[in-house]
């Protein structure tokens, strides 16, 4: 059926053409990360699954792929780090700015694998953005999941994203634990100081009945995976998300393949067991 995936989630007919959306709220998370709330004339642009992506564009500057970090009744949220032309332009934009948006793309998190299990979320820096969509989903469907445990780190206290969630909202949720670390503290920081992988090993959450979901800078992921293996997690129990350069988002432009897999379509979410089957080229 033509473009069924898109149609079911309520979006436009030609998957390469954006609709016009509008920034309705901007939250400054850190000196270089802002969260943008985006809506369209007809309300929410579409209804993504946790972990799905969208192409966001500032006309005429450019277009790039971002995780949809959360959604509300009428809007989608993107946490965007300033790294280049497009992201700088977005950081300069004010509420009311119209932008282009198309999606949703990608597979999203495997909810079925997570259901009924305890979930361990391990994030670093902006890497909490994709994971947050799943965390919020679990909170909204609390009875479907076991214990929720977030281990999150950033370079410094001021680089922590989603501070309201980390310190206010999430700790209040039933059976939910949040542990935060920073690479380097400051005079006001009384929490843990140290890298995420070491902090993880220190807390040492048991792999029993658990699924671990990790996302962050490549170097953090690399060491987190080693720590998880040491702690007895199997590759089937570990879920992560990948980033590749993307243009089309729908598996046509050829840009984002790893072997015969297209990250924009078959990913960005993979279990470690799946990644182990793929060529090491990411």
């Amino acid at each position, binding site marked *: 059926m*033509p*473009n*069924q*995936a*898109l149609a079911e989630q309520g979006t436009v*007919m*030609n*998957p*390469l*053409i*954006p*609709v*016009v959306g509008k920034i309705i709220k901007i939250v400054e998370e850190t000196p270089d990360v802002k969260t943008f709330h985006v809506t369209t004339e007809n309300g929410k642009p579409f209804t993504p699954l946790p972990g799905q992506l969208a192409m966001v564009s*500032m*006309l*005429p500057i*450019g*277009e790039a792929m971002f995780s949809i970090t959360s959604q509300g009744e009428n809007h989608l949220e993107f946490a965007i780090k300033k*790294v*280049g032309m497009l*992201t700088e332009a977005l950081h300069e*934009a*004010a509420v*009311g*700015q*119209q*932008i*282009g948006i198309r999606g949703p793309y990608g597979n999203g998190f495997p909810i079925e694998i997570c259901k009924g299990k305890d979930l361990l979320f391990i994030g670093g820096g902006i890497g909490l953005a994709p994971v947050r969509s799943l965390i919020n989903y679990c909170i909204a469907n609390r009875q479907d999941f076991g214990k929720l445990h977030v281990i999150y780190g950033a370079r410094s206290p001021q680089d922590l994203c989603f501070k309201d969630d980390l310190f206010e909202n999430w700790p209040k949720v039933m059976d939910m634990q949040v542990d935060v670390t920073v690479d380097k503290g400051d005079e006001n920081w009384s929490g843990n100081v140290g890298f995420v992988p070491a902090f993880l090993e220190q807390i040492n959450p048991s792999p029993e009945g658990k699924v671990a979901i990790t996302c962050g800078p*490549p170097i953090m992921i690399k060491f987190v995976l080693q720590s998880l293996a040491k702690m007895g997690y199997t590759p089937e129990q570990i879920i992560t998300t990948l*980033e*590749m*350069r993307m*243009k*089309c988002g*729908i*598996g*046509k*432009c*050829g*840009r984002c*393949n*790893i*072997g*015969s897999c297209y990250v924009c*379509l078959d990913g960005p979410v993979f279990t470690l067991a799946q990644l182990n089957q793929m*060529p*090491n*080229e*990411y």
Partner: protein
Amino acid sequence: MLGVKKNNLNNFLEKISSGYQLFVPAEVEGTTRFTAYQAGVQLALERNTVVPPKELFFPQTEHMYCYKAHKQEAAVEEIAAACEPRVLFGARPCDVQSLAVLDDVFLTKGYEDLFYKNKRENTLVIALGCRKPEPTCFCSSLGVDPSGTELADVMAWDAGEALVFEAKSDKGKKFLEENSAQLEDLAGVTQPTAECTMVLQVEGLTAKLQKMFEHSLWNEICKKCLNCGTCTYLCPTCHCFDIQGKTRGESGVKFRCWDSCMYQEYTLMAGGHNPRPSKKERVRQRFLHKLQYIPERYGKWGCVGCGRCVVKCPVNVDITRIIKQIGEVSLDA
């Protein structure tokens, strides 16, 4: 068989072009490619075209939408992907097979590319059987029959003094009926057959490549490649594209254009990380894409054996030699 005498061919094409937009293989500015039929066009029917017909379905640059941006406001207007009914005349069996590869890419796996789909659906394909495959042709090793293809709407053959036709689809049958006034029954004329002289062993190639990602062969193969991209632009199955914009003042147009995995920029990410940082990874990607990844994903070869890259590579990186080299690799060593 039903056919057209060669001295009548121009009349025949003229007639078709009054009902359809007709594309024919022709000499154009020092090369050969498919071009819109018009009086005086220099038909090139002897050998396959240098430029494949892919550009009729997936143009080198293609406008997608217009936009306006003024202060905080933005507007997007789709450029309709509409297409008049067309006839592609004279595509060789390998290039018709390449359309099957492009169909898989652009029309399956959940999303349809409407720009491609509109052109594809509105184009009737008349394939032309090869009489004498070139020394660089190896389509028969990859499951293509140079004498003819079932994937076209109409099959045509050069039978010496005449071109003869056979319908291969309902659409093709209707087309021949529509044009029956132009066709005569050429008693005794039969379709010629042809075979590639080059034969390659490809059995088990994909399975073998699955074990060769880290093999030292790629270090060797990549050495002389210039990463010029010629091979990818001339390949009838290469489909990678970039999305770019042209802006004038407050408005502009977004278009897509061919891109190539041979370029370093292609996979370069924010922060400077590049999963394919050197020639080795890029050359490996190209050959694995054709011979392993497309077969894994779509169940057919990503190379149709047309030999264009073999002929046009400035430093003679030769996919047929590489297929042989892969065959000679012993994996136990």
